[in-house]
């Protein structure tokens, strides 16, 4: 019985960062911008949360910094996509490299040790707030996207930006808001990883969650609730790692670690082609 409870709790915890990033992915793609840089924005969020917590001693300020960092890189992507009309995939990849390289650089510069930071003041048990917040935000985003004027306009940007122009609005500005928000969400997810679950930053801690989140977006048909559900599934696979570790003798440890990624692969194979992304997704306007 306690095993089941442990599994549920772990699933929620492991799913949380993916939920944040996936919600970011949904809002971005709904506005028509593919955000491949979610991983980098998570890294930025995780890193800056630790830095600021270290500097100020306040995990709350750290959290805020993490969100801001993610939003800042979101803005970079938004600029690249709307003003410079570059290929969004390439731009996102660039952001990923900038953030991971930058974090590694920063680690050496600031802490004089590669690989991990020192321990900092973390959220402690307050991190549960973030877990609950993630799922609350999923619901909120659903309402915003489908019931508010802003949500309608963002969705229109993702379907046909020229319709938005015809309505006298600015699709590029709307896309910018959406992408900045997506970066902020990813940053929050990253901050959860560093000062929520743990109390430090270590290289590679995001472990591709930003990409798994993209798979969750596709699997969830570009809806907030769907993506959250998919994120929960991926979280479950991660949680299974811990629960099953050592219990199944014939399964090598790395197979469990690889499970979320394999799951993402299988999900991708199963669902793509049966669902349609927003019509103008990835197309510069």
């Amino acid at each position: 019985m306690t095993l089941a409870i442990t599994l549920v709790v772990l699933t929620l915890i492991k799913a949380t960062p993916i939920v944040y990033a996936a919600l970011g992915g949904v809002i971005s793609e709904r506005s028509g911008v593919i955000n491949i840089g979610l991983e980098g924005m998570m890294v930025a969020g995780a890193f800056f949360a630790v830095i600021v917590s270290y500097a100020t001693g306040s995990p709350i300020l750290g959290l805020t910094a993490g969100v801001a960092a993610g939003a800042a890189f979101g803005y970079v992507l938004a600029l690249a996509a709307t003003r410079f009309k570059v290929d969004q995939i390439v731009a996102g990849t660039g952001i990923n490299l900038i953030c991971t390289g930058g974090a590694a650089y920063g680690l050496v510069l600031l802490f004089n040790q590669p690989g991990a930071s020192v321990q900092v003041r973390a959220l402690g048990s307050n991190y549960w707030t973030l877990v609950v917040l993630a799922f609350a935000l999923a619901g909120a985003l659903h309402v915003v996207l489908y019931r508010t004027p802003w949500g309608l306009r963002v969705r229109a940007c993702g379907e046909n930006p020229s319709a938005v122009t015809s309505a006298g609005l600015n699709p590029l500005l709307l896309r910018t808001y959406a992408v900045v928000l997506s970066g902020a969400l990813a940053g929050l997810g990253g901050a959860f990883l560093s000062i929520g679950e743990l109390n430090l930053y270590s290289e590679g801690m995001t472990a591709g969650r930003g990409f798994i989140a993209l798979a969750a977006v596709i699997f969830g048909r570009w809806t907030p609730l769907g993506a959250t559900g998919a994120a929960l599934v991926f979280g479950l696979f991660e949680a299974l790692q811990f629960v099953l570790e050592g219990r199944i003798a014939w399964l090598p440890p790395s197979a469990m670690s690889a499970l979320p990624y394999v799951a993402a692969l299988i999900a991708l194979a199963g669902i793509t082609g049966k669902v349609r992304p927003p019509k103008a997704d990835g197309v510069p306007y």
Partner: protein
Amino acid sequence: MQGSAQPVLLLRDIRKTYPGVVAVDDVDLELFPGEIHALVGENGAGKSTLASIAFGEVRPDRGTVEARGAVGLVHQHFELAGRLRVWENVLLGREPRRGWRIDAAAAHAHVIALAQRNGLEIDPDAFVDELPVGIQQRVELLRELDREPAILLLDEPTAALAPAEIASFFATVTALAKRGTAIMIVTHKLAEVMAYAHRVSVMRHGGIVERTLAVQTSGEQLARAMVGGDLPPVAARAATTHAPCLRVADLHGGEDERAVRGVTFEVRSGEIVGIAGVEGNGQSALADALAGVIPYRGTIERPPHARIGIIPQDRLAEALVPNWSIVENAILGRQYRARSRRGMLIDRVHAREDARQIVERYDVRTPSLDATVKHLSGGNQQKVVVGRALIDAPSLIVAYNPTRGIDVGASALVQSRLMQARNEGAAVLLISFELDEILSLADRILVMYRGTIVGAFEREAVERAQIGRLMAGIA
């Protein structure tokens, strides 16, 4: 007709150039309340550019635009979000609210009231991409009308409409004019201009070459002004022999509204079979099935070694690689043939020869064979496509809107070459949205409506009015 003597839209000394071409050349234009003003001209004459400038979408290099009132523009290619609902499209940016939420019920009621005021019917909750094209246009129109514009610009509004829908459209427009809205229609359909417009301005090469009242002119006069002379003649029709070359039986393919649902027909050597119909009635699915790019049920039979030449309807997206040269494009679709390759390598010498042959035979205006195709004008691009399709003397040709969006001279040349191919024994299937083209080229005419063939005519026995009714789905 004209309520007051004060123009409600003034364009003065408008000039707009794009690299290499003067799109609008020192144009003056005035629009009065309550009039229906037709701006006519061939493709590339500058009408759409002028409309965009009038609407404020494009800034002119020189000149002033003065609009005394709100301006609405209904585009030639609709700017709608297909996966959103009608009311969401109509009220985008002006959504009725209840607090911070959208008031969906109010939106629904608002759209119905708006439609009724203008004598139109619409389902506010329908998804736009599930509606027929004529109704989609209604959505775009309603969106503009909701802003109560003093000026309404309509860009090629009847391009995608069936004859019955055209009549209903003009009824709406005429009613709007009577209520004082100034209406400018950009079009190349002279019959409609003669039937509904008050004043006409003819554009050619970026300038206005004739201004007249509709009652004081005729279709032929307008056509001559548009073209600047008489059209070059299409090649004459020769007697030919007739062995069957293409047999289609009970063909089904494609999806939803635009599917082809069971067509049966035959095309013989030495004849042109024309398929007439309004866009969206299954022609694309038929063409794609014949080209082998979509799955289909039913039979398509051809003699086993018959070569097939295909002219797709969208040259830049379906027939050419825009960034490549004429030489490289000359072998696209032919690169596996023995002539185009030497084993695993491309035969560059032959490719160049073929490109040269196409350019010469089709009078492609280009600085060199290595010019990038996207820098050619639409007409020259299309000539490359047609030249390539016909270069291997195919026994079967499928031409889908082969003269769409190209200048008159290029159109005439393309049509001539198709006729020549027919005279030399090719079987030609011509699918076109331009009824005039079909009437002038085809030996036999089939009419498609909702994915099936609803009428068949021999060339001599054709009755234009009846074709029009069939195209609209009226028996």
